[in-house]
């Protein structure tokens, strides 16, 4: 499915070598994305996830390989791809309203002030920050700032959304509630999303497919896990689904045991797609893996 040639986003043979190092951080990265799909990439620090996202955003150049979106090559930043940055990246001298208006006016420079304001208010309302719209970022909590970052990215109605570990700096409770919101908004807007995370549960909650990256150097997308759980997921009931632990164990197994052995280009260039949620558990019942975040 990922190689049928009709992918909305297509990454081919992507590699990045930083000046001064012999071995590339990652190479032969190949994968595709469908329109409306939520894809999460997961892997250890230093495997180049953020670099891949920046290449997709057009903020960084790859050493080799191509990115195609909607049949055209991605060669620089574009309003077609909204980015939610790791550290929210709000401009501290502007209020929430003006921060988002800055983005809206960039997309539609001909809009009147009323039109811009209507768009801004709609998206601020969407992330539940209507009451804080005229506050400065410094007056907001970390979770609220990240919500504003999300609203800003959605407000320009991009064809694709790139999220660089958007909830990494948030506490677990805040993270959970924003995850729920993101899930709801994505379901409403049928947004195509590419997201980086370190959090296995976040990946299972949000993603349609999970890209597993082997360790660097010469990291690759080693395997693609299809999330076969029904799309109407909820954080509260997620772990009652029998598929949940099968998928989760598969992911944790990869990150803990296999990703190391697949560094230095030992991972396949064309990743296989697996559906661990559908395979019947082997003789012994699956032991829940001890909850941990992979850092």
């Amino acid at each position: 499915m990922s190689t049928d040639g009709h992918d909305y986003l297509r990454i081919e043979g992507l590699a990045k070598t930083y000046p001064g190092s012999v071995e590339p951080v990652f190479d032969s990265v190949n994968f595709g994305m469908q329109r409306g799909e939520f894809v999460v990439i997961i892997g250890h620090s230093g495997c180049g996830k953020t670099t891949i996202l920046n290449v997709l955003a057009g903020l960084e150049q790859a050493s080799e390989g191509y990115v195609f979106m909607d049949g055209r090559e991605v060669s620089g930043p574009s309003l077609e791809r909204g980015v939610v940055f790791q550290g929210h990246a709000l401009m501290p001298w502007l209020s929430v309203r003006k921060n988002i208006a800055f983005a809206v006016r960039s997309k539609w420079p001909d809009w009147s002030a009323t039109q811009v304001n209507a768009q801004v208010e709609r998206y601020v309302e969407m992330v539940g920050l209507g009451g804080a719209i005229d506050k400065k970022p410094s007056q907001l909590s970390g979770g609220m700032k990240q919500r504003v970052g999300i609203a800003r990215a959605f407000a320009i109605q991009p064809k694709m959304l790139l999220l660089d570990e958007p909830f990494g700096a948030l506490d677990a409770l805040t993270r959970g509630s924003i995850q729920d919101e993101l899930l709801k908004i994505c379901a409403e807007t049928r947004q195509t999303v590419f997201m980086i995370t370190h959090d296995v549960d976040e990946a299972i909650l949000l993603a349609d497919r999970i890209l597993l990256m082997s360790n660097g150097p010469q990291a690759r997308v080693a395997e693609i896990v299809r999330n076969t759980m029904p799309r109407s997921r909820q954080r509260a009931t997620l772990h009652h689904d029998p598929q949940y632990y099968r998928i989760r164990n598969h992911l944790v197994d990869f990150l803990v045991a296999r990703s190391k052995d697949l560094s230095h280009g030992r991972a396949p260039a064309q990743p296989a797609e697996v559906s661990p949620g559908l395979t019947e558990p082997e003789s012994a019942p699956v032991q829940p893996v001890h909850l941990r975040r992979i850092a």
Partner: protein
Amino acid sequence: MTGLRSPALRSAALSLMILALVLLVWHLATLGGAAPVAPKAAMTAEEIEYAKLLGKDVSGGGADAAKSGFPTLAQMGQAIATQLASPFYDNGPNDKGVGLQLAYSLARVGLGFAIAAVVAIPLGFLIGMSPLVYRALDPFIQVLKPISPLAWMPLALYTIKDSNISGIFVIFICSVWPMLLNTAFGVAGVRREWLNVARTLEVKPLRRAFEVILPAAAPTILTGMRISMGIAWLVIVAAEMLVGGTGIGYFVWNEWNNLSLPNVIFAILMIGLVGMLLDLMFARLQKAVTYVD
């Protein structure tokens, strides 16, 4: 004593006490008057003439003796009252009110400073955004920066041939460096993530400069402007002493030639007061553009 519990009131009370102490010391120091001149009767005609040449008053007795020395508080108060009564009078080139002289100085500083800002801020932007330009201009800046602005004066007078414009030039040259360096520093330090936001939103260069880089660097730029203004106000007094004609610096020099120490002291106070007000103004501006991250 309840009112004195507030720290602001207590510090104000202490300030007043220090002021009172300084005034008391002044009063006591000038009480005895200057070196008492020997009675007129005991002097020969040549000695009286010599004493007059030295600026000593020989006409009266001991009561008038204080007049020739450092001014007493009463004389000082009188000088202040006379000056403040008509600060803008103009009785020809060597006799203008202190307000008028301050206005001349402020106009020079304002003009020199404005030209410096117009040059330094865009150039600082350029330097801050391009490491290449920064490296290319750095040796020039490093050599030019430590030069005392007054050292430029002969060159300015020779090439410009106008003492007034030379004064403005000296203000320009001393204001330009802090603004240039701070602007470059502020612009170079604009966070990568804000620039990346602008890039992903395809923001045009001019809009990026005015809506992202300028507000982000504004606190640093304003700090540079504040330092520049402080230096400019220091330098204007010296420059006007050199070029003469008008201005508070010339006023000080002129009153020294008149041996009017009360007026000199009054001018010194005014220089300090105006300098403080200028600094306060920039502090306000700085506060207005500072953001909490």
